[in-house]
């Protein structure tokens, strides 16, 4: 089973199995990470913002223009590592993925 590691806003590390076919956002929510994801994953807000470890970023599908436009103005935006977790389709190929929750809005 592929695993996801998520570092919460207190710096605590959580490790859990990821479910293929769901987005990273859905995986984070299902595992009780405190992520709002207000719009439910339709890329209409930026409340599922995470920082992705740099070695992982290049293994993910590149963000589309819409995601980039939204995430750029999200709190704590980091050009190198910021992503919207609803736009990352999770699969076993991402075993070991490490993400950090971005600050809350």
């Amino acid at each position, binding site marked *: 089973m592929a695993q996801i590691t998520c570092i919460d806003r207190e710096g605590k590390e959580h490790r859990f199995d990821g479910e293929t076919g769901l987005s990273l956002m*859905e995986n984070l*929510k*299902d595992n*009780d990470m*405190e992520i*709002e994801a*207000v*719009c*439910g994953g*339709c*890329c*209409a*807000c*930026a409340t599922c913002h995470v920082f992705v470890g740099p070695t992982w970023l290049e293994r993910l599908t590149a963000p589309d223009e*819409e995601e980039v*436009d*939204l995430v*750029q*103005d*999200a709190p704590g935006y980091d050009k190198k590592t910021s992503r919207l977790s609803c736009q990352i389709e999770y699969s076993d190929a991402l075993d070991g993925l490490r993400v950090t929750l971005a600050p809350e809005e």
Partner: protein
Amino acid sequence: MVGDGVVIVGAGHAGGQAAAVLRAKGYGGTIRLLGEEPHAPYERPPLSKALLAGEIEPVRTYLRKSEFYGEKNIDLRIGIRVEAIEREARRVVLAGDEALGYEKLILATGSVNRQLDIPGVELAGVRYLRSLDESLALRSDLEDAGEVVVVGGGYIGLEVAATARKMGAHVTVLEMLDRIMARVVAPEMSDYVAACHRDQGVEIRTGVAVTGFEGDERLSAVRLSDDSTLPADFAVVGVGVVPNDGLAAACGLEVENGIVVDEFTQTSDPDIFAIGDVTNHPNGHYRRRLRLENVQNAMDQAKAAALAICGTPEAYSEVPWFWSDQFDLKIQIAGLTEGADQVVVRQVTDENRFAVAYLKAGVLIALDAINAPKDFMQARKLIPTNAQPDLAKLADPAVALRDTV
């Protein structure tokens, strides 16, 4: 009397989120989450879009996976109707006379669709859309619908129209006022959205009311105020909602266009909180009371109630925001337009990018963005600061919104 703890009446977005946040914030008492519908808490926005179109299945609309409630020791009870609140005894009475005691009560009863009171509304084929089951029923209707009439040119009506059209129906939207979304957006925005719908083959008729539904048992036509009729296989009525505040009113809580709460979501009874669509709440930014029908408000008020119950209250005072998807229009709205005395359009025609900024005495109070997520995000930052944009810069879409002040 069965224990104490928190009872949440209403297992929609607000109720489900309140239960989750209570646990996340370390609340250790009993949590009972009571829902009338036969479903765990789910997201309503997809009901008029992706779920209706068949692009996703119900499981993708659930707020949390089904195991969540058990794992978090949240007693989720669905298909349960609360009949009364007995404030002195601190308990809610369920259908069948069972009663549940509470230490703190959260009312998350949402809103209900405004009903049309016209002849024929009971005919098969006349539908409203609020619940997941109604969305699935409508989805199956639309699979082979020829003529669909949407009554009401607001956000829900237009989303349903777009989805039905994409599914192949011939769609007519009927709006009583002289333009769609007239109560909440500027004419420029109405025109832009209407033009998009018309380009996609949706007929939009404004200034016309529905006076009746006609047919033998099932709908066959819609009668209009000019006494003409439109053929219809299905009609979908989206003419607004009213707060579902009957339980609160019956137990003597202060109710006026929704349950009256303070910035901590507390009602006139300190042991009872109310959250989401059903509340009439103060907004610190706009300095007036609001009743909103949107996910952001439901989630933020859920958090405020949970924090108050955990003894760490934080006032809720967000600039509201909304979104809608219709055809290729990604609509995002920051703030409330009421009271605007000036609008400025920012348009890049070849990118289908369009935004309308609303000002009141020179202060940016709201912005509608279509395919303009940057403007939306930056407006959400600027509005709370009472920014006064330079009008020439504001009218120039090449200038970033944040650089207009």
